[in-house]
């Protein structure tokens, strides 16, 4: 959308004020995320931009919080090793990866079923399978807290993994069903008529075509698990520290700037994931022959 050459002054004013407004909205969306990046390098123990920091005085900038994050912190001359952030990172990756693998496997198979033309009760099933994404986390957490403690799944990694898998599957179902719309079923028939069995057809024909959707669904499931704090808080024990749980504790109790360092790392991670998903989406569109305008 550009302004034609014959635009009146009024139209020009309107157009540029519209652009300014949009610019401000984009700024509102993006600025808070990037404000924490410089602050994580501050030596100050509070979340604030000190004058020294703004004047780039070397002593106001430091990596001490990053050092503390990876487990090295020094009080006076003695080096203290605090491992909780690294423990949280390990736990987050462990739970996240296992939950993602489970969610991807279950979700992909279900999406294949849902996309079949003969699927009975499709709408109802879809609504049920998507519901973990819609129900507020606090309700999910309450329900899981009651039920999982009955069957002894609270305070265990298994319980946490199952919970996160359930929360992640809707994303896989949605992305894979989206990839499957417009899937040419003749390809399956062709493969079968050439003598391939169902399994071979799946891995040789269907899988390569839907792979972009599967991977982006998996990444969504991963980030869901990686971000999730409410359920962890209620069904996890002290042992099951994850990054978000540690951040939450940090915010409620100590407000240590280590949180900002971890936040910076998480922003970097989300940029990486976003880039991957965007590239996959374009590849998938190219594969399916959807042209970009």
């Amino acid at each position: 959308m550009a302004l034609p050459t014959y635009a009146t002054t009024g139209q020009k004013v309107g157009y540029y004020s519209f652009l300014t407004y949009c610019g401000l909205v984009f700024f509102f969306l993006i600025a808070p995320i990037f404000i924490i990046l410089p602050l994580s390098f501050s030596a100050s123990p509070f979340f604030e931009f000190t004058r020294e920091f703004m004047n780039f005085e070397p002593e106001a900038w430091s990596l001490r919080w990053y050092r503390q994050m990876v487990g090295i912190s020094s009080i006076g001359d003695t080096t203290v090793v605090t491992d909780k952030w690294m423990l949280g990172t390990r736990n987050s990756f462990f739970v996240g990866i296992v939950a993602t693998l489970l969610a991807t496997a279950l979700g992909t198979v279900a999406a294949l079923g849902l996309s079949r033309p003969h699927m009975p009760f499709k709408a109802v099933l879809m609504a049920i399978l998507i519901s973990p994404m819609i129900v507020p986390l606090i309700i999910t957490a309450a329900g899981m807290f009651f039920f999982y403690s009955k069957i002894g799944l609270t305070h265990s990694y298994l319980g946490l993994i199952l919970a996160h898998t359930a929360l992640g599957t809707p994303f896989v179902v949605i992305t894979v069903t989206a990839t499957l719309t417009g899937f040419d079923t003749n390809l399956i028939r062709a493969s079968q008529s050439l003598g391939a069995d169902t399994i071979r057809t799946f891995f040789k024909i269907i899988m390569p075509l839907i792979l972009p959707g599967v991977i982006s669904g998996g990444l969504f499931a991963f980030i869901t698990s990686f971000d999730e704090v409410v359920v962890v808080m209620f069904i996890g024990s002290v042992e099951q520290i994850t990054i978000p749980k540690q951040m939450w504790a940090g915010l409620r109790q100590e407000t240590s700037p280590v949180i900002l360092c971890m936040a910076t790392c998480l922003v970097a991670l989300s940029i990486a994931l976003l880039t991957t998903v965007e590239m996959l989406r374009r590849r998938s569109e190219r594969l399916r022959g959807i042209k970009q305008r």
Partner: protein
Amino acid sequence: MNQTQTSTGPILTTDGIPLKVSLKKAERINKIRAFLLVLPLLAFILITFLVPIGDMLSRSVDDRQINTVFPKTFEVYQKWDRQGLPSEEVYKTMFFEVKNSEGYNIGKASTRMNYSKSGWKSLLKKSKRKFKKIEEGPYKEQMIAIDKKWGDIEYWKALGQMVDPTTMGYYLNAVDLKYDSNKEIVQQKENRRIYNKTWIKTFKVSLLVTLFCLLLGYPISYLLATLPMKYSNLLMICVLLPFWTSLLVRTVAWMVMLQQKGVLNNLLVMSNLLADENRFQLMYNQTAVVIVMTQILLPFMVLPLYSVMKTISPTYMRAALNLGASPIHAFYKIYMPNSVPGVSAGCLLVFIIAIGYYITPELVGGKDGQMVGNWIAYHLKTTLNWGLCASLGAILLAMMTVLYWAYNKIVGIENIKLG
């Protein structure tokens, strides 16, 4: 050509079965196959997600616990006419059941009894201790001598609310009502009416957030949809990056922005617009919740709006302008009606997510910004009044279901777009 077509009977396949039957059979096999593919996930969601939710719902009406502690008392209690004090028999059964049950069970039961009438908890605690000394009857006078609450008919009447194995009491509590001692529904005392205010506040915050998301999201979606692809893809990253960034990280970022020594206040002070001593209190109130939630939920508004606006052909607007409409008129008459599906999808989605929010109000809301989600967490973790927790959750869930159903009708659940 085909043999079977010459005969007058139904069309047959080569093995002599009518085609209709054969087709039906094939279709059934296909249906079963499709269903079998969905089955593992369905079973998984059922066990790990739906059953827990059901468990929570059952807790919101469950009132059996106290009946298992005082089964005999409730049996004889039923015979009481509720006029004068209960008979010696009721006192006697109560006495033995308090004396002989485990302290843990008494504790749990007394917590429940305290919801009906406060005072029961301390009464039972005291009685449990002192009953040990009493060896023989009559028990009525001795019990009243221990604590005169035993002689107060209101306490006995309050027990009547707990006779049934199910109760609506928690639901009443969740909307600031309660049973009085005669099991009539009455309003809570003035100073205990907190939940109706919370419900209204939750709706207000969610509506405001939806409104602001629309006001901020509509123009940028329009810009994204009308710009050439190479620019819009770049700007789209501004929308998608927050979407992919951890919720906690974004809330932390806002805490950095809004706190007393935060970025916004610092900027104002540094530019001499504000004196250092009267910095604004931007955090720990309802305004902060609305601001932060708007930023966090904005992508959920922009994505559905964008995907609808993308389908509106630019020729429509050109045609309207060509026919002499002013740009504003053309926008109002042509573009807006075409974008309504996106608006309704975005608004519903944002409202659905906002109404159950917990993390952000907890961190930036302070006392004034607490929503229903926070009360659920509070009762779950702090007061352990799980019945009330479950009933608040159930009401919230019912609202969500209605909204979810509306979303499904209007937008279609399979049209949710992620990125």
